């Protein structure tokens, strides 16, 4: 039992988030009398909150470097407007329009990254300006009105599903994928454990590893089974999943990832270690521009229109997700998985509160309280550990 307590203490950050997610989900399970776990609702939950998860992945990198990006909500709207103008007004082919929209996102990142990294204006100011600039440009592009509808194939982005393998009733491909994913996770966990043993690192007792894997496998397969009962795996989930894998790998296993953590952890030391911190910050903002553009396309596709008010306050949801996920305002701390869990907390709350009929007024207030408590809990723990 002592090992379990120690394990929990040492990893209170990660486990705290997961426990929060489980508690909040459990609460809504009771409050909605189980509706939240119905196959149809689970699919909806993903479709409604996919772009928050996508934005959180880009935002966590920005926040790890010790910066912030307030402009992503406006960039979502602006890129949506660009896509609308291209596809609807000018009949540009869907695929080409998507590529062009992503390039626009990258250019926005270049613009903001230049002012922040090379001119040295605080990111708060630059992206606050960006928030106004790109919202204004969106209004100008759309002339204050909505553009609709998009070509049908563009709808795949938000409401498409992976194809089925031909049987009816249960979506077989979904089940196969989830079994494969479970096996990969089990393999990686044991490989990791072997390496740790090889280098005499502290390893958790075997029974904990097995329990953890059993729970994880159960959750994944149960979740996949529910999706399979409906229409299978949404494209949105595939996009989020691919982003998680790519960015977790970058942050954990590449030189670039190390440079991002080092820049946020101690910029002066990173500079003296030969890291080009300005370049790091610049590229992180370019990356966030691309991610915001991707989210913008998903958002426009879901609404099936480009509207001036799209993505309003979305940046705050993404930032909140990252901080709930354990990142630190001072930089140097945070993980992609943490940001995703934070995003899920926000998503489950959005979905659950809507299901039980809480108005938008109280939804905002409650989300604010959760953010405050989550970060407060984190700060409290850190102070206690420091003593």
């Amino acid at each position, binding site marked *: 039992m002592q090992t379990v307590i120690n394990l929990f203490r040492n990893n209170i950050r990660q486990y705290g988030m997961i426990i929060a997610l489980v508690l909040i989900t459990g609460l809504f399970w009771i409050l909605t009398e189980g509706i939240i776990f119905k196959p149809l609702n689970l699919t909806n939950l993903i479709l409604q909150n996919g772009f928050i998860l996508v934005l959180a992945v880009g935002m966590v990198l920005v926040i790890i470097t010790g910066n912030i990006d307030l402009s992503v909500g406006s960039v979502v709207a602006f890129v949506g407007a660009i896509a609308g103008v291209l596809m609807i007004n000018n009949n540009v082919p869907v695929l080409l329009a998507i590529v062009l929209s992503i390039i626009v996102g990258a250019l926005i990142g270049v613009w903001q990254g230049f002012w922040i990294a090379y001119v040295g204006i605080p990111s708060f100011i630059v992206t606050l300006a960006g928030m106004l600039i790109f919202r204004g440009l969106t209004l100008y592009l759309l002339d204050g009105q909505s553009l609709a509808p998009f070509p049908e194939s563009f709808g795949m982005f938000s409401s498409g599903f992976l194809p089925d393998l031909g049987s009816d009733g249960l979506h077989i491909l979904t089940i196969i994928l989830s079994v494969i994913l479970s096996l990969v996770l089990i393999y990686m966990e044991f490989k990791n454990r072997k390496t740790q043993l090889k*280098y005499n690192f502290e390893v958790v007792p075997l029974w904990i590893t097995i329990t953890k894997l059993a729970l994880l496998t159960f959750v994944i397969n149960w979740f996949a089974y529910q999706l399979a009962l409906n229409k299978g795996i949404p494209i949105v989930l595939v996009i989020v999943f691919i982003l998680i894998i790519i960015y977790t790998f970058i942050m954990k296993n590449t*030189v670039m990832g190390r440079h991002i953590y*080092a820049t946020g952890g*101690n910029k002066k030391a990173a500079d*003296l*270690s030969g890291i080009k911190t300005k370049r790091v910050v610049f590229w992180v903002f370019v990356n966030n521009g691309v991610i915001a553009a991707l989210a913008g396309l998903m958002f426009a596709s879901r609404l099936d229109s480009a509207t001036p008010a799209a993505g309003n306050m979305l940046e705050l949801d993404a930032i909140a997700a990252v901080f709930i996920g354990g990142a630190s305002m001072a930089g140097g701390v945070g993980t992609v998985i943490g940001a995703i869990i934070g995003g899920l907390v926000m998503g489950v709350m959005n979905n659950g509160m809507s299901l039980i009929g809480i108005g938008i007024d109280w939804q905002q207030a409650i989300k604010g309280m959760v953010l405050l408590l989550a970060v407060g809990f984190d700060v409290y723990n850190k102070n206690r550990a420091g003593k």
Partner: protein
Amino acid sequence: MSDFILEMRNITKTFPGVKALDNVNLKVKKGEIHALVGENGAGKSTLMKVLSGVYPNGTYDGGIYFEGKECHFKDINQSEDVGIVIIHQELALSPFLSIAENIFLGNERQSRKIMNWQDTFSQSKKLLEQVGLKDSPETAVMNIGVGKQQLVEIAKALSKNVKLLILDEPTAALNETDSANLLKLLNELKKQGITSILISHKLNEVSSISDSITILRDGQTIETIETLGEKVPEDRIIKGMVGRELTSRFPKRVSNIGETIFEVKDWNVYHPQQRDRKVIDNVNIHIRRGEIVGLAGLMGAGRTELAMSIFGKTYGKKITGSLYKNGEEIKSDTVSEAITNGLAYVSEDRKTYGLNLIDDIKRNITLSNLKRISKNSIIDENKEVTEAQYLREKLNIKTPTLTQLAGNLSGGNQQKIVLSKWIFTEPDILILDEPTRGIDVGAKFEIYSQINELAAEGLAVLVISSELPEVLGLSDRIYVMNEGRITGELERGEADQESVMRYMTGSGGASRANSN
């Protein structure tokens, strides 16, 4: 008895593990200029902090008597109330406020909490006349030079009805004209009956202006010299400052010195903010393979500035001069260029410039040379652990695991991590800036052994240190710096504490003539 305005009796101040002051006595006569001298870390600043109440009554032993009365200061306000004002080396002025506002900062001229601007300006004007500053009191402090700012600080002290003025290294950042003016002002103030304590490394100033000189060494009072109007020979002061035995705190070493590997030629560097201030003045140095070269100098001599300007131009502006490695000119305009060319610099401030405290040990060690553990930009974590483990054992870093956060370790172990980090870059020239600052004796010995071992492997090592015994105990050869210039170069055999100190304080005979 009433001769003395201040008596500090048997002051003892202990920090965890260190006795910073050990039965120190200081007696200052009314209306004199009393100099306080000693090496870096001799306890001068600590003594002044005890006096001014920065270390409150109760955290030290001994008694303070000011104008015959025993004092128990709990903070700076209480010592200022009786007329003791300290002016720190780093000036405490607010740059965007005017001279007048700065003079009365925290002591505002007011009537019922409303600022009385008329009083503020008219009184500042009088005070400025007293210190001989002609600028308008409305000028913002950021728009006047360091010399004038120093005068503003003194005017501020005068506004508090100062009786005893303490100046900590007031001329360290000043040029010669400004320094001379300041010393003249101290003499003026003396005539007005204000007593001063002057802490200074510049022995020529000290011997020319002071009425008495107290020498501190290793937290103890060595002696107080009454000058009686005579100029005290600088050698006499130096002898008092360093008269210490070298103990066997250094591991034995047989040096095996090869050919010259690194040369710095005609190196000049200007201050990054004060564009006309030359920080490094025509420095020429060289280091040979397998050689440990010491770089001695007092605080502010320009040693760190020299090292950082060489290491990827990380300090200074308008840098001129050239660097040679194995006889060929190399570039070191960025840190990565410096690293590629085999330079490594271990900073004096490991927490600010050396480590990412919120990351783990192995990642800190590998950060400067991730190329070595990666392929196509993808990090091989197994290799990382193996390499970090090797260095951990080599340097004896005491930690349960390599995944421990750097911030959780002791100073000595943190220093070993920084050293490992730079060994990991496989340098040819290793610059160590204060490699043993703030770490205990045991860890010091281990770091010295490591430095010796690296030199034996053929590295050229440059050690910057403020501790004379360390410089003497480690080095094959010693460069001495003073005010941005190399004032002396001494071989192991000919260097002793007194000769080095003479060059450090700029009173080093022959070479001084050369540099003028």
